[in-house]
């Protein structure tokens, strides 16, 4: 084992073998899986037993007897083999003497654009396939745009099935020119067109005799020698992401993380972001001994001379004052957002954002426009559906440190996650900070919420009554407020209808407006809780994600979800405002429970069944519960 304490000299020579991550994309049926299969086969990288298996499986799938369907080497999941398409991103690995390769094979269909973007996010180069007989298709263009959006700077235009186009140079030249014209605004650093036939193996690993007019490299040769951006990360400004605070004992406090770009050495002055505190690097610690220098890509542990506070998710950058040395720090910024979930984006909804190694609530405050990923045109949009891309303004709960995605893919990217389902719903590429919020600072309050509540002999609480329209939320909440008032407590009632007549009269009943309605009421309830009140809110709040977001606004235990559980049929029967009748007649749209969903609470703090007890009895039960929680008695 090479464990030791001695100093190892930094490697100054060029390492023997590099790593290239690339993806293959292009329209369905243009032959991506076949190309990778052929590449592995001709490079002698398919083991005999796998080849034998594929030969058996190929029976009846190829034109000629005894032929090999090379796509079978890569299409993995059962559903894909049945449908004959690539659904998910498959990773393939191969190595030649010159380079190791990680290949992401991305699906072609429009409904899998998100998978393709995922594959592109870590790739340095894209092999974009085109069928020589068909030329550029909608999907070809979309994939080129997605590659550009995801920060890929090198493209190989693999013009496939040349054998079926007579191996004509004119066909190749025309398609290559078409692509050059289309891709001009996409900002690729290099575009290399190669004519090939994956099925026959022409210009994949071996140069083709059938296309002697082509003088460039075969695909593999190009992949082995293409210059990609490894050097940029080394030359870039210092960015070290803290992934783990290493405290094995009281004498050692290290920041373990990955050097995303630049270099780091003992004695370097650094700044910890987003706090902006300065410190000096003491040691660069590794299992193999201290290092005199760490470079981009290294996983190391840094100790600082000064005992400055630094946590997981913080970013170390250089301390110089020149432009680019420091990351941006802001809580509002503009970004391209690719939507990845079935459920559309709801501007105003609180999502969880992961940026670097930090998680925090974030909201799309404005959807400025959608980007047509086939034509690059901007269109007005109220939402983003799955696979759509938009330019958004986002706001985070606290300032974050970041770079523009174009400058650094690691520090300029983020994902959005649904608060309730935990699904990854969006992938974002940051463009620039928005300065608007820079001077807004939270006023430190001289009297605390707890002090105000203590003066009232209670603890602040927010009881959120959720349930269908007509479930009895307002009725129970009203009785409860009466009972609390009689006990001498200070309360306030917020009711859906009342709020909509004033504060929220600009809002309708679309999903987005419902989310904004609840968000505003949550903020009002929060101010009232800070005033020390017991706040009763009676709102349908149909979405779990909003109720989760509400809970997150308050200190632990202050927000209580009260589920007024009345079956839909019973609500329809009662129909106190005649709304169900209107909704069923079609004269009232987006009505919860009829043509708009209600997501039942799975673990409410309290559940009230209005079919077994009356409103006073239920209110009395809530009073008991509040007493047990210590809200009423101090």
């Amino acid at each position, binding site marked *: 084992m090479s464990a030791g304490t001695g100093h190892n000299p930094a490697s100054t020579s060029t*390492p023997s073998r590099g790593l290239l991550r690339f993806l293959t994309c292009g329209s369905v049926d243009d032959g991506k899986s076949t190309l990778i299969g052929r590449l592995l086969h001709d490079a002698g990288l398919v083991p005999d037993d796998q080849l034998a298996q594929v030969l058996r499986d190929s029976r009846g799938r190829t034109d000629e007897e005894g032929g090999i369907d090379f796509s079978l080497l890569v299409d993995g999941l059962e559903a894909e083999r049945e449908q004959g398409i690539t659904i998910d991103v498959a990773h393939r690995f191969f190595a030649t003497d010159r380079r190791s390769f990680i290949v992401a094979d991305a699906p072609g269909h429009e409904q899998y654009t*998100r998978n393709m973007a995922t594959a592109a996010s870590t790739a340095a180069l894209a092999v974009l396939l085109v069928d020589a007989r068909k030329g550029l298709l909608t999907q070809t263009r979309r994939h080129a745009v997605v590659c550009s959006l995801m920060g890929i700077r090198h493209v190989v235009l693999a013009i496939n099935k040349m054998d079926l186009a007579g191996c004509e140079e004119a066909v190749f030249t025309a398609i290559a020119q078409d692509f050059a014209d289309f891709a001009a605004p996409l900002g690729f650093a290099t575009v290399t067109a190669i004519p090939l036939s994956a099925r026959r193996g022409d210009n994949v690993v071996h140069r083709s005799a059938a296309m002697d007019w082509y003088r460039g490299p075969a695909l593999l040769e190009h992949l082995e020698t293409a210059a990609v951006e490894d050097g940029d990360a080394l030359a870039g400004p210092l960015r070290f992401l803290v*992934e783990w605070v290493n405290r094995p004992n009281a004498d050692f406090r290290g920041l373990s993380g*990955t050097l995303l770009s630049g270099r780091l050495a003992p004695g370097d002055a650094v700044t910890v972001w987003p706090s902006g505190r300065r410190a000096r690097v003491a040691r660069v610690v590794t299992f193999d001994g201290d290092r005199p220098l760490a470079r981009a890509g290294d*996983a190391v542990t840094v100790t600082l001379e000064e005992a400055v506070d630094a946590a997981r998710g913080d970013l170390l950058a250089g301390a110089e004052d020149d432009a680019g040395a420091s990351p941006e720090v802001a809580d509002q910024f503009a970004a391209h957002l690719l939507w990845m979930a079935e459920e559309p984006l709801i501007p105003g909804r609180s999502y969880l954002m992961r940026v670097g190694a930090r998680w925090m609530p974030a909201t799309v405050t404005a959807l400025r426009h959608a980007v047509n990923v086939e034509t690059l045109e901007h269109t007005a949009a109220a939402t983003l559906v799955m696979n759509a891309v938009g330019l958004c303004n986002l706001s985070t709960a606290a300032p974050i440190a970041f770079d523009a995605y174009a400058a650094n893919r690691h520090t300029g990217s983020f994902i959005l996650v649904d608060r309730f389902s*935990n699904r*990854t719903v969006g992938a974002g590429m940051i463009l620039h900070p928005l300065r608007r919020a820079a001077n807004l600072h939270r006023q430190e309050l001289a009297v605390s919420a707890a002090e105000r509540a203590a003066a009232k002999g209670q603890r602040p609480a927010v009881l959120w009554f959720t349930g269908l329209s007509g479930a009895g939320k307002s009725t129970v909440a009203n009785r409860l407020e009466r009972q609390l008032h009689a006990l001498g407590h200070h309360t306030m009632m917020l009711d859906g209808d009342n709020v909509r007549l004033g504060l929220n009269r600009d809002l309708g009943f679309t999903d987005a407006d419902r989310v904004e309605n609840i968000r505003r009421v949550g903020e009002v309830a929060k101010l009232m809780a800070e005033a020390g009140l017991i706040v009763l809110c009676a709102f349908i709040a149909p979405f779990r994600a909003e109720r989760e977001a509400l809970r997150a606004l308050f200190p632990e235990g202050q927000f209580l979800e009260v589920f007024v559980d009345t079956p839909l049929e019973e609500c329809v029967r009662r129909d106190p405002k005649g709304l169900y009748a209107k909704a069923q007649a079609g004269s009232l749209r987006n009505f919860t429970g009829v043509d708009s969903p209600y997501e039942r609470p799975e673990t409410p703090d309290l559940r009230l069944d209005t079919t077994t007890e009356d409103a006073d009895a239920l209110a009395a039960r809530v009073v008991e519960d509040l007493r047990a929680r210590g809200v009423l008695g101090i």
Partner: protein
Amino acid sequence: MPNLPDDLRLLEAESIAILREVAAAFARPVLLYSIGKDSGVLLHLARKAFHPGRVPFPLLHVDTGWKFRDMIAFRNETARRLELDLIVHMNREGVARGIDPIRSGSAVHTRVMKTEALRQALDQHGFDAAIGGARRDEEKSRAKERVFSVRTASHSWDPRDQRPEPWRLWNTRIRPGESVRVFPLSNWTEMDVWRYVAAEGLPVVPLYFAAERPVVHRAGTLIMVDDDRLPLNPGETPEMRRVRFRTLGCYPLSGAIESSAETVEDIIAEMRASRTSERQGRLIDGDEPASMERKKREGYF
């Protein structure tokens, strides 16, 4: 690290970042230690990730009772040498039912003594993240597995409903009862593992190296007679052959290959010249078509 070629240096750093992520994001992680070369690399990476601190999670070995004796000896020696917090779990119920790889067949044995045993151990200890050494190059359904792969409370996996994993922004959020399987070696190949073992001088189970061993020919492969529990078919007599193993598991299910590779360098040279894949010697994958995907849906690693 300074001596590693660039491709291994980057793979190592990526894996270390993943291991730190698990430790930071989950309440009760565990490293599944299966004694083989991949587990050995994983363990080494975990020691590097948290140095000078200790590895902040225990190791779990799911013992089927049919591992090679050399594997158990290596496991115990490694745990002692590195002062590891090692949990060994065996499905006692399966043992009581008399499940074994020979009479019960490989499919039943694997389900009861590996898949079910693993689920038992994870539930019993309340582990919310299980780190495994599986690689995407091993098998086609693994090629599409995520690095952080969510399992339901009943440990099942839905390959059609996987979270997209852009960049390295792992989505580690799960709901109560759910857990994740984490694969830090996702992007390594068998060759990378051996090159890393060589570069770092890692110890591995001696069964990977060629030696004279008693074997019988079965189903086109060589099975080692590791103890007297292997019933011999009529006319079958063990013969001494110079063999080694590319993967290690339960000895009656692990096929040996004839080889003269006695060092890691020999193994690498042999692989460069070799024309068969790593899992070829594994009898359990061939049980039925697409069998690995089905096993994984049920909770097999």
